[in-house]
């Protein structure tokens, strides 16, 4: 499978990564190579094989319903570019 420039632009938009027009052709080639490499797996017959969720033989770890965390507003907001009182403040996004 090979990607074209338009697809590269769409993926970049979905990932919110800015890829200048001039770089898209090159990026399409790079990404296509990665896909081609992975596509080798298609040669293996996986009929009837259940997808592997994990290589460790263990179940999903569960916790009890207890309040054990939270209560540190300043730590949560420490990396915020902007705050207003105890809120994160971000550029207005209105629907």
């Amino acid at each position, binding site marked *: 499978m090979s990607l074209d420039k338009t697809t590269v632009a769409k993926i970049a*938009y979905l990932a*919110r990564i800015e890829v200048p027009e001039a770089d898209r052709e090159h990026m399409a080639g790079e990404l296509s190579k990665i896909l081609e490499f992975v596509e080798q797996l298609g040669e293996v017959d996986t009929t009837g094989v259940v997808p592997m969720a994990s290589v460790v033989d263990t179940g999903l770890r569960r916790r*009890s319903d207890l*309040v054990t965390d*939270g209560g540190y507003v300043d730590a949560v907001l420490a990396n915020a570019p902007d705050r207003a009182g105890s809120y994160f403040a971000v*550029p*207005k996004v209105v629907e």
Partner: protein
Amino acid sequence: MAYIQGETGDWEVVIGLEVHAQITSKSKLFSGASAEYGAEPNSQVSLVDAGFPGMLPVINEYCIEQAVRTGLGLRAEVNCFSVFDRKNYFYADLPCGYQISQYLQPIVGKGEIILDLAEGVSRTVGITRLHLEMDAGKSMHDQHPSKTYVDLNRSGVALMEIVSEPDMRTSEEAGAYLRKLRTILRYLGSCDGNMEEGSMRCDCNVSVRKPGAALGTRTETKNVNSIRFVMQAIEYETRRQIDILEEGGSIVQETRLWDTSKGVTRAMRSKEEAHDYRYFPDPDLLPLILDPAWVAQIKTTLPELPDDKKQRFIRDYKLSRYDAEVLVAEQAKADFYEKVARGRDPKLVSNWVTGDFFGALNKAGRDIDDSPVSADALGGLIDLIADNTISGRIAKEVFEEMLASGKAAAAIVEEKGLRQVTDTGAIDAAIEAVMTKNPDKVSEYRGGKDKLFGFFVGQVMKATGGKANPALVNEILKTKLG
């Protein structure tokens, strides 16, 4: 079938609902931060909920149990193997850039809800699935001219998304579906169903078509937070779609918002392109595997559910279907009824509980748990009616007094001398007096004017201050006038 009349003939509305029901857990789905409503902004946020790098989600076992309970309560298949996926999109109140949800393999599969509609009609609506997911944070757009404020307290709170089949055809059915679902969730205790606080929110999928035609293009109106608004949004959206189609236009498949203040739906500005969610299994979470024995054990802890309770009330208490539905709508109401009905005439009790009693609660704006009249006190009043101490009419007066003073029915009857007159001598005398005072009416009655009988009953009751036993008055009047 209810059709909507348009310029070009009848239209059928097709409605499917997606309900987000917040699980009644103390802590969040994947973190130990509190899930309680109404705290100071960002005070109930763990570094997991804030999407800090390297933080790992650990699932809350109680939430799994509530999803299973709810699935069983909806008579649905519980899937002992389910998978968590990442639903990817960018928004300021979604710190990870993805929501952990379940996509292809949800924890609960197909089930059903029976709607109790007016006039004893019921209708079964299919449940497509129920899955577990985390909530996003809350954005506030009205606090600053150019900024949006974000509170992540809700980020990571456990939700059950319950998706219906497109089986509803009117806004009333959609309303009945939400009421019934809320009743079931409250019986199960898995969600408090409080729509004002956002613990139950609804997305409405609506399309219209000519009767018998293929499904039309649908729109999805998101996050409607009351049953009334859901019904209004559906009605508005139906009319809007019919108008567009009848003018030769076509419906755009899109996400819309309900504008409460204007009473309209409007398109969200974001492009459809943004809804390419690129789901994939969350590498931080292994598949959720349930032990069938655990599921079976949870099943034994389910309460009697509203449909079963209704059937039992109809069968054991000989109640009408309507009365049974009113009583089972809330578990506390049904319990109250059963407490009063123990050892008493179930029909008489039902009339009092669903009539005067619920009326008084409504008027006072009080919950049944906070009722001014206890089940025992109401039972005491009903006993006085049953043994003919007071008539039903006087009982209403006593009930008002019980509400006002909190005194027992028997005490009020004694104090106010409301005991019913069953002494035939006293009734005889009252009748004689009325007949003597109205000789013309007596002869008219005897001359064939039967309707005057009611006049005589009224006069006698008036003369005895409403305390004469109505059955006795009727009986004696008939003999004397006859």
